[in-house]
């Protein structure tokens, strides 16, 4: 499904974005850099706080788990030493989750919740990137996330179908218009080593395509922000 994104949707946040992808809609707001509470303060770098709120209900352990996944690589992307003793807060609110599951039992809900982790992460990561750009936070490299699935027949398809043999979420960092490094990869299901690397290679290509799209959007937003310069 095509990515649909907007930048600067929240007026009071430092930076914000709204992304809908694969039936999931996420709004991301960035607050900071701002003063840290004494407990969070790090002397040489910034403290990164990622908060995910689900579409329905209160955040649970599942959201904590997703926050951790995002925090892991985001820490290395943000140039932390520019913001010592400060906090950068990344708030991600999942707005919509298309439930294509018509089943009714509680246990299929549960497996769907686990299945959706990757789809939600995918959307959150792309949204976080746009919001970081909007918030003028210095980053070492751009990044974006793509999701791929192997069907039962063995073909590699972009975007996540629930009926799949394996699913691969790949996040690449992009520097100077070139794929720089693999920031995060989550691969679940049944797959071989060869298939894993094929998915990673495909991820490299697709992330360049997605990057040019996100870049267009962010260039537009920067232009609008600094309109007095031109």
């Amino acid at each position, binding site marked *: 499904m095509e990515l649909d994104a907007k930048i600067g949707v929240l007026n009071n946040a430092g930076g914000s974005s709204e992304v809908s992808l694969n039936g999931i809609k996420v709004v991301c707001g960035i607050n900071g850099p701002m003063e840290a509470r004494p407990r969070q303060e790090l002397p040489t770098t910034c403290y990164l706080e990622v908060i995910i709120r689900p579409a329905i209900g209160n955040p649970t*352990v*599942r959201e*904590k*788990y997703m926050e*951790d996944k995002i925090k*892991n*690589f985001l*820490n*290395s*992307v943000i140039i932390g030493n520019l913001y010592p003793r400060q906090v950068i807060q990344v708030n991600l609110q999942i707005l919509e989750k298309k439930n294509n599951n018509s*089943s*009714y*039992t*509680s*246990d*299929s809900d*549960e*497996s*769907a919740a*686990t*299945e959706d*982790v990757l789809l939600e992460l995918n959307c959150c990561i792309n949204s976080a990137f746009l919001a970081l750009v909007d918030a003028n936070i210095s980053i070492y490299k751009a990044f974006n996330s793509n999701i791929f699935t192997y069907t*039962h027949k063995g073909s590699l398809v972009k975007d996540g179908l*629930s*009926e799949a*043999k*394996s699913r691969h979420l790949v*996040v690449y*960092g992009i520097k100077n218009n070139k794929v720089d*490094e*693999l*920031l*995060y*990869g*989550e*691969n*679940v*299901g*049944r*797959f*071989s*080593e*060869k*298939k*894993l*690397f094929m998915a*990673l290679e495909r991820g490299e290509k697709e992330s360049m395509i997605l990057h040019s799209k996100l870049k267009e959007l962010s260039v537009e937003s920067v232009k609008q922000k600094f309109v007095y310069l031109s």
Partner: protein
Amino acid sequence: MSEEFQLKPVSFSPEVLARIAPELSLQRHLSVGVRPCLRSFQEFKSVQINPQLDSINRYTSNQGISSKSTVLGSSNIKCGNTIIFCTITGGFIETLLPNDEADENVKEYEKIYENSEKQENNQQDDSLSNFRTVYPIIEIERGRTGAPTDEEMIISQTLHDTLLNSKILPKESLEIDLGLKTVDKDNNEIIIYPNESKDIDSSLFQFPRKYSFVLYASIQVFSRSGPILDAAWLALMIALKSTKLPCVYFDEKNSNLLNDISSLSSKKSVKTGVVNAKSGSQIICDPTKSHDLKLNNSDLYTTTIGLIELDKDFSVEIEDVENNEDFKALSVDKHTRNEGEPILLCDIEGDAEENAIGSRVVVIPDINTEDDDNLVSVTIIGGGSKVTKQSIQNSIGLAKLRSKNLQQQS
């Protein structure tokens, strides 16, 4: 004012340096070919799987002897200096049916049930909704109590999701085949189960409701010295392997079956889908009889490997490392690595390694399958040193080796 200002070098003990400058401490160690924990680069922690204590479990291995314990399975492992206990407990729930489709009529109700079963069978066998998981609670002892830490929450969710995604616990394993407690011709109380008595009319076992087990795992970790996902997963796997589920029966004497069925027909009880107190109490776990929990595959092991690049700026100059007796044995690893490739460190341990290693690869290989698709999960966390294709391949190789090793041990 002629006092001369001198900058005196400060020295710290290794433990202090590891905490205040983990990167420096680790790099200095690695540059001479040794890790802060004194293991070599690709040496795993020793794992000791202790025999489980029969006194903890409700159903012991030699069947029959039962205790008042509610523990269905347990494990006790030691990984390096870390000790992990895992106990499995359980409960059962009524299998939920669609509310709006249920009718007052019991026959109608059964028809819907059959239909829904058919529908489910039509679904693909490896759809995730045909598998179950356990609900783990993990406690890492650090001398204080309170709300669970982030790490505890994240690991318990990781265990939960990984177990579901690896599809080793099929739905059928947790379904309950209700037995019946009744009286025979001579008025003796007997308990009969559908799977063990072929000569008994199967219509006896047609209960209006279906139940299935839910499993909980409580994992306690003592003296943690590094990331504990691998050890916690191992403890969970071994505990699940030893888990025995009780046989469950319906007590005919204490209830009126007809009454129960008629209570079902009242619209309210069907709509709410809740076991009412009366019918719930008639379902009893057999004190002596149990069966093993069936797992699709019990030889899955997670392996976490840290990746770090050597930074020449931090290296320590030791004269003639090659010929120094103390370092001779340790410097082997240095030469087996290609230039520019990160060093792989197995079983991250200690402050320096934990804080300085940014990139990690977590692999779960399936070593039992002949199939080409022999990987269940690969998680790559980048951000530290660059994760190269070569290092992912090597990590997968190491994980397979480690899994085979653990398989032999358990």
